[in-house]
């Protein structure tokens, strides 16, 4: 009992110290870098800037960010206020702000990309985007889908979050398996480890992770949501049926019925409790296991993604972008802030413990902050090459967003896992998606 005591206290104390040290260290570094950076124009002095962003999954990042913002504000004479709310509640808040015609100056779309919904009321930020692209080697192609409408930039991409594979090397080794390379390998491992009390887990429920995990599997199998234009549905395909069939087999052989009740945090807990042999989750799970179960943490390894049957590898991430309301009272300061933050991307990445993946090509020069220094995470430096977003290969349109928020894809996988009727599920799912796209086309 006393051993557990001291270990626990050590870790909680060390966690706090870790956070503070990281925050302080990074803040110090960013301070230095800011003194080197350009001075903002005098016109924004004495103004105030209000921004709304999400609560980052890595608390240390928010510590760094709030500090960065404060220092930027002090240096430029801008009175800055930052509000954080969970990302799933952001759409409701934005709907209210838009209805009210008043709210924050600078806002953030996290995962739920609303650029297509609000672009008529957002400031055109193309000059800022072009400037950043020129300065940092160009934007990733996928950046445009989250931020552009009709070729103009109405949002500035900040970073994206990837959702890789986290697996227990020791458990895999215990059944003679090495590093998994394909979904088939993952299925195999789960099948062998479930009888030993170590099933795998992926959410079959109405949660954010379910939306992204299953899309990852789908795209790896060659299934597509739409064509490249985003206007025509392409989900009714042999590949999609293959993906559904595979997921049912994987569930039955290697997972338990718990996965139907899971939310976004359940797979973290599964890993931390020592039960899971692998999960498909963002590296915040990896970081939190360091504190809650160090023994498990030691044996947990990270893979960018595993391949589908034809060797295709796609990892579905979540993009985060900045946008500015037209009714904002301080557009110049908002733009200056975005510029300043983009100029400090390296510190931001470090503060996020490698969670934030950049959209600007120059930021991928190795070694990348944090990822380059952690041998377990260094493979994630290639993540951008295999990253796709919802709606793939089409852009993230309002129609795709509605398919996302009504959980049609997770429901399809749930239905097949439960009842096994692939054709019936396809008919239902394709029908629903078709209806949604038809309504958006009519607008």
């Amino acid at each position: 009992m006393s051993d557990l005591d001291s270990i626990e206290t050590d870790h909680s104390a060390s966690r706090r110290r870790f956070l503070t040290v990281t925050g302080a260290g990074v803040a110090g570094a960013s301070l230095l870098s800011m003194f080197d950076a350009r001075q903002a124009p005098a016109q924004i002095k004495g103004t105030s800037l209000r921004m709304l962003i999400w609560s980052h999954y890595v608390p240390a990042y928010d510590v760094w960010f709030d500090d960065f913002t404060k220092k930027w504000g002090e240096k430029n004479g801008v009175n800055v206020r930052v509000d954080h709310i969970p990302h799933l509640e952001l759409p409701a808040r934005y709907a209210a702000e838009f209805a009210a015609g008043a709210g924050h100056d600078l806002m953030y779309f996290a995962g739920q990309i609303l650029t297509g919904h609000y672009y008529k009321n957002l400031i055109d930020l193309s000059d800022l985007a072009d400037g950043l692209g020129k300065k940092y080697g160009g934007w990733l192609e996928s950046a445009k889908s989250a931020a552009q409408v009709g070729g103009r930039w109405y949002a500035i991409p900040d970073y994206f979050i990837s959702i890789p594979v986290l697996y227990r090397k020791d458990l895999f080794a215990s059944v003679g398996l090495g590093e998994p390379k394909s979904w088939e390998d993952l299925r195999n491992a789960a099948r062998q480890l479930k009888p030993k009390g170590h099933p795998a887990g992926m959410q079959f429920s109405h949660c954010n992770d379910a939306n992204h995990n299953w899309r990852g599997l789908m795209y790896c199998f060659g299934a597509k949501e739409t064509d490249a234009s985003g206007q025509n549905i392409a989900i009714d395909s042999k590949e999609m049926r293959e993906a559904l069939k595979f997921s049912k087999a994987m569930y039955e052989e290697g997972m338990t019925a718990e996965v139907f009740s899971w939310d976004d945090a359940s797979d973290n807990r599964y890993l931390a409790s020592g039960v899971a042999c692998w999960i498909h989750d963002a590296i915040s799970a990896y970081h939190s296991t360091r504190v809650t179960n160090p023994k498990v943490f030691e044996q947990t390894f990270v893979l960018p993604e595993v391949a589908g049957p034809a060797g295709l590898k796609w990892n579905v991430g979540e993009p985060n972008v900045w946008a500015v309301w037209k009714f904002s009272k301080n557009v110049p300061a908002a733009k200056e802030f975005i510029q300043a933050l983009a100029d400090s991307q390296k510190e931001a990445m470090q503060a996020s413990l490698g969670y934030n993946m950049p959209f600007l090509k120059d930021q991928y020069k190795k070694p990348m902050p944090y990822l380059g220094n952690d041998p377990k995470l260094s493979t994630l430096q290639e993540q951008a090459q295999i990253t796709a977003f919802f709606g793939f290969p089409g852009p993230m349109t309002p129609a795709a967003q509605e398919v996302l928020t009504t959980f049609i894809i997770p429901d399809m996988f749930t239905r097949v896992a439960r009842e096994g009727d692939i054709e019936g599920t396809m008919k239902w799912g394709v029908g629903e998606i078709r209806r949604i796209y038809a309504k958006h086309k009519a607008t």
Partner: protein
Amino acid sequence: MGKVTASASPKQNGLLAEVLSGRAERLRWTRTPTARRYLFGYTLLAPAVLYVTLLVGAPFVFSLYLAMSDATVGDPVARFVGLENFRAAVETSVFYTAVRNTLVFTVGAGILKGLLGTTLAFLLVQPFKGRKFVRALVVIPFTLPVAVSVLGWKWMFDSQFSVINWALSRLHLIGAYGSPDWPVWLGQPALALASVMFVNVWRGFPFGAIVLLAGMTSVPPEIIEAAKVDGANFLQRFRMVIVPMIAPILFIGTAFDTVFTLSDLSIVYLLTNGGPDGATEILPTLAYNTGIRGGALGRGAAISLFLFPLLLPAMILLLRTLRRRQY
């Protein structure tokens, strides 16, 4: 009554005299007690009516408009499309699931709250030691803010760490973790709906018991004595005497509770968000996910207003019947 003032000028033509005399009649009327009472009454009512009209009535008209337009969150001034949104809603199978779940949830939870509340009230009406303490304890589920108590239940229903499962398996009523009879409360479809209903009942039945208790203790003892003298046993007394007297408050309480439950999305949203595969999808969560998070405001409004045409006549009927019974 005073004199008709118009008769003071006989030279005016007959029509004007009539009008003037009519006006005088009305003027006189405004000084009557009835008129004064109306004026006083409507003045008293004015703040409430104004508040509700401005802040609920006007937005309600707006939401009707939304339901009949193709509005999105970024574009609320859109084209009128008539009943298109309602038709679109009815086309999707998840909508029927949501309606079914909503009705099962509301009616089922209502019945359970009624039964449990009545039983508890029965027990609490008996005099016994510690009654005040027990009453204090059973009120707590109702005073905790919904958002947080539901989160507590989320953990209590957790598939791995559920307190309920731990207790049940210690009592050997179910197997251990990992065995097939370890319930996944929020994962198996019927269990999930039952679980969200249970949380609603957990919050509501103690309050229902207190209300019923109040009603039962309000019946004048003389009537009960009279019934006892007439030879009625407890159940007969309950049915013939107590129930009719507390019926009005029962009706109102049930009516309000039904309406609150029908439009409440917090329990389902926080526990399952409608999953798995729509097993707990109810109209409010469907409307929220479609209209607000999905941005299709018009269709979201249509879904959330769908039950309104059914509820409105039902409520009117109920309230009219109630008022008639009072007189």
